[in-house]
């Protein structure tokens, strides 16, 4: 991987929603923005923007299938270390938002 690409990858993965998108895509063959927005608390339009950012970083690629683009992970720029960081980071995002709700409820 080129070093300039690696910076783009890390900044693309700095966003919690994009990490979630990467995690969903890692568990499936391919997904559309509509399918992703049904599983995440953001609009289809927002997902489409995140997918563009991930595509620019070379992390996903979209292919026109019917009315929508279907996106899949492109494993090349995503090293094992990056996918570990995306997955573990996404787990902590989920846990910490639950912890925040739990502490808010009890205070």
């Amino acid at each position, binding site marked *: 991987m080129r070093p300039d690409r690696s910076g783009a990858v890390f900044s693309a993965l700095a966003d919690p929603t994009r990490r979630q998108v990467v995690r969903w895509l890692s568990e499936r063959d391919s997904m559309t923005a509509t399918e992703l927005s049904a599983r995440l608390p953001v609009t289809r339009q927002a997902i489409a923007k995140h997918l563009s950012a991930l595509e620019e970083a070379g992390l996903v690629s979209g292919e026109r299938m019917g009315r929508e683009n279907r996106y899949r992970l492109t494993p090349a720029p995503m090293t094992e*270390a990056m996918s570990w*960081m995306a997955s573990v980071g996404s787990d902590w995002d989920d846990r*910490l938002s639950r912890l925040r709700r739990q502490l808010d409820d009890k205070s």
Partner: protein
Amino acid sequence: MDKVERVEVFAVPREQVWRAITQPEHLSEWFGATAVELELRPGGRVVFRDARGLVRRALVEVVEPPARLVFRWLPFVVSSDGHRWVPGTTVELVLEEVAGGTRLTVVESRLPAFHETTPAGPVFLQPAPPDPHDAPPRVFLERRR
């Protein structure tokens, strides 16, 4: 070192955050586990069970109430969906008193691609055979000694 770091500030006293991260009944609520066992002492065992019946084990390394907790995930193999290797990692939780509440810093880290870079390395780095009976972590520990 591969590392994930998160920093959050909660508007509650540090003791309250400490309880949320060290008392099993509070920990299971937010950790994504249905049941947690935790021996709060260095060397203590931690067991997380999730809704699918998967078990993940950890060992407590550092306990400094109410400021710091370090535990180490033991490597494990998921056998139900076909043998997925998950490397061991270290999790450090640091609690600091700040204006307006408590800052929690979480760092999860591991040696980079440890198991990949040494394919012919020590026995304990090789995937264990699938085992439906919750044995893999113990197998790893025994081989490691």
